[in-house]
């Protein structure tokens, strides 16, 4: 995967975000179970070509900023049995994240 030039992302670590729940057809690397869920940006990984295009032999441009987003397990599953301090982290591209006030 080609890592393109560094990019000032739309979000900063600590920002609260929601994963978009828009429908999508074809290859997409935003898992269903995270759609519509709320998390916090933990880290900015850099800029990567868009896999939704790469999958179809397109250039994947514009490249997307990729974030590590941290979710509380309690926010993902109704009735999560473990302690409230348990988390899940996933890498989500910027065009799948919506700002939350």
């Amino acid at each position, binding site marked *: *995967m*080609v*890592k393109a030039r560094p990019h000032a992302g739309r979000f900063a670590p600590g920002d609260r975000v929601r994963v978009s729940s828009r429908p999508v057809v074809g290859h997409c*690397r*935003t*898992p269903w*179970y995270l759609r519509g869920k709320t998390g916090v940006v933990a880290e900015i*990984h*850099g800029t*990567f070509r868009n*896999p939704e295009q790469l999958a179809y032999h397109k250039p994947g441009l514009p490249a997307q900023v*990729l974030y590590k987003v941290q979710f509380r*397990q309690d926010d*993902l*599953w109704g009735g999560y*049995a*473990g*302690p409230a*301090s*348990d*988390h*899940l*982290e*996933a*890498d*989500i*591209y910027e065009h799948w994240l919506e700002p939350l006030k």
Partner: protein
Amino acid sequence: MHDHDPHDHDHNHDHDDDHDHDHAHAPPQKDHDAGPVGAYEVLEEAVRSLLIEKGVLTAQEIANQVDLMDSRSPALGAKVVARAWVDPAFKKRLLKDTRAELAELDIDIGTLAEFRTVENTPKVHNVIVCTLCSCYPKMLLGVPPAWYKALAYRSRTVADPRGVLAEFGVELPKGVEVRVHDSTADLRYIVLPMRPKGTQGWSEKELAKIVTRDSMIGTAVPAAPKKPVPRKSNKAA
């Protein structure tokens, strides 16, 4: 197979040495290519032949790449973990820039993915999964185990990580945060487990031997080997 239970070892089945051994035995193991050719095998062969015929790749290049993947095994990851256990400066750099530190150990991770090391501490236990497919730190651990790619592991690890870990024999107290990493994109993760107690003064090589594949996925915790328990003899008195 014969069941060699020492308490019931009467060997009463007819096994004269002089009988004609002409009855059909099932072969001990089926040839892997004995069955009908599957669709994916046909596809693979067709694509491979075309790539070679059209001069995109040579058979030698394909064989070299297969060799490269086969040369990767958890021993590589274990080497990295053991180095991190004995060299705090290396560990610090590894957590900051895994790719660069692997290069320092002459481990080339190729151009395919970024690498990240996540550290287990007394407060956080990390576990790795890929719900979308089976993204795995192959360049450090080799080919993934079948269970890592199974629907059950992929779907249950994100929803009930403590339940899955318990099934692997890892019971974590409530005070330890379980942090699941779903490798959804361009990064690959490897867990840096905690160095077990009772390993003070061990050499890097000795330490590497107790770093298991599963401990670098997060489904196990390395342990210093216990004193071997003497086995009961099966021999009749």
